[in-house]
């Protein structure tokens, strides 16, 4: 179990009085393996470990900082450098503040929208939801069941096959609300027609924030898929879902590194309340096992 490996190497480092190159290299190898097992992009892991090793061997640890603390601090700094210090909140400036959701099939967009709507409602906002998913059977019904008990207004029309038209009508209907959250059908980078549709939806919605939803269990493809989404419109923020399972969510790290959007929330379950503000410290310690 990798967590144990890392602990053992860290113990070795802890036992050292001064930096021993061999032990440091061993520690870096274990960190590498931890990050790979956490699904961080391979190239990113190789680059990170080069940087970490260079810093660990060239930087003199400050007085009374043990080699172990020194290496851990460097690993930590490099990861925080990628992730950002603390995720900014959803900052509602102009009204209606429009949030456009996008992501791969089954990543958790619709469920997250229910959660986010509740989260914003608790903060005193007046959110509304628009369903533009014309592909998935019962997509509107799913959102209806999520928003109904919260008395959150929802617009959708299962008989309308035009996502753009739905977006236009929904934005228009809710122009008096504080916040409008727009749900879209899942899509991936090989579906060029759906990516084009997303470009058009984004033009119609003219979002104040674009939220990319990433499945916490995704592997090496996270980077490529995130790139494809970022080419349809600027991505403002990321939510990683399904972190209540055993996945570490390293794929999302690669997406952040690639498109530069901060992670704002994580999904930790299927219930409406299972949405947490992103905490880089907890994410990193989970990443390293």
């Amino acid at each position: 179990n990798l967590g144990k490996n890392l602990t053992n190497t860290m113990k070795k480092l802890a036992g050292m009085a001064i930096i021993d190159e061999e032990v440091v290299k061993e520690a870096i190898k274990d960190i590498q393996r931890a990050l790979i097992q956490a699904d961080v992009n391979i190239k990113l892991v190789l680059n990170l470990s080069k940087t970490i090793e260079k810093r660990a061997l060239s930087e003199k640890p400050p007085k009374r900082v043990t080699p172990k603390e020194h290496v851990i601090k460097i690993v930590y700094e490099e990861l925080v450098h990628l992730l950002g210090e603390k995720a900014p909140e959803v900052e509602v400036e102009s009204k209606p503040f429009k949030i456009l959701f996008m992501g791969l099939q089954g990543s958790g967009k619709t469920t997250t929208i229910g959660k986010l709507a509740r989260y914003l409602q608790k903060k005193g906002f007046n959110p509304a939801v628009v369903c533009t998913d014309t592909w998935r059977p019962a997509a509107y019904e799913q959102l209806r069941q999520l928003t109904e008990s919260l008395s959150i207004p929802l617009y959708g029309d299962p008989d309308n096959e035009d996502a753009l038209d739905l977006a236009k009508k929904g934005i228009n209907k809710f122009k008096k609300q504080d916040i409008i959250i727009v749900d879209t059908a899942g899509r991936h980078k090989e579906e060029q027609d759906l990516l084009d549709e997303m470009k058009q939806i984004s033009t119609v919605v003219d979002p104040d924030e674009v939220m990319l939803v990433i499945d916490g269990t995704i592997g090496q493809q996270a980077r490529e898929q995130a790139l494809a989404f970022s080419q349809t419109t600027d991505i403002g923020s990321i939510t990683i879902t399904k972190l209540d399972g055993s996945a570490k969510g390293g794929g999302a790290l690669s997406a952040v590194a690639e498109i530069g959007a901060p992670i704002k929330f994580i999904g930790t379950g299927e219930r409406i309340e299972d949405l947490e503000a992103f905490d880089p410290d907890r994410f990193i310690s989970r990443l390293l096992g």
Partner: protein
Amino acid sequence: KTISQGDLEDVLFELELSLLEGDVALEVAEKIIKSVENDLVGRKIKRRSDVALHTQDALKKAISEILMVKGPNVMALAQEARKAGEPLKLMFVGINGTGKTTTISKLADYFVSKGFTPVLAASDTFRAGAIEQITHHAENLKIKIIKHQKGADPAAVAYDAVEHARAQKKELVFIDTAGRMQTNTNLMDEMKKIQRVVKPDLVIFVGDALTGNDVVEQATKFNDAVGLDGIILTKADADAKGGAALSIGYVVQKPILFLGVGQGYKDIIEFKPDWMVEQIFG
């Protein structure tokens, strides 16, 4: 001359990298590379330049061996069920959002086209819109769906579906279950209960082909809980390199039966180990 460990170092490193970048889980990639190394060290070669080619062949061989697992022939079993007058029961399990419901509708469509009459069991009684989603598919395919109200006992729905299939001489029952994290003990127990009550002939794990290292945990825990008879990997059309197939195959030694390659009813293909070799070696 014979191949030495030193000869292999660089080429094996590159190979491991391509496995990892292809979404093969780390522990599986390491084990595969180790077995390739053991296979090659000490082998006689004519020229040093032959090492790369020998290594590629050894890797292809290792991949094929992992994936060549004898699996159930669902069509043959369905035909036997028809003869015996006893429905073949398939239960579909996996974590949230992998494509279970969509995959069931694809398989149902396939068997309808072959003259069978499947029955669907809406045993996801929890998620918003779940019953409506599968009902919509049943209506499109013009097949019977057995469903209760939201929040009902999933095992009871599955049981009713089997009873209906028996009474009406329908050959196939597809049981759709809710997505669940293998770390959620209550939900894993719920799944075991469905299995106890209904005793499915086949338990099929539906995984997302884009999944990374976690697929090892998922497949292992689901296999430990209910025993898997086959695997279906979905969303292979997303340009998934599909290393998850190799990881699962290695770890639970169960056959990958099908690949989901899109969201339409026809978007399902038989899994062939050659596909995996093609993915890894481009």
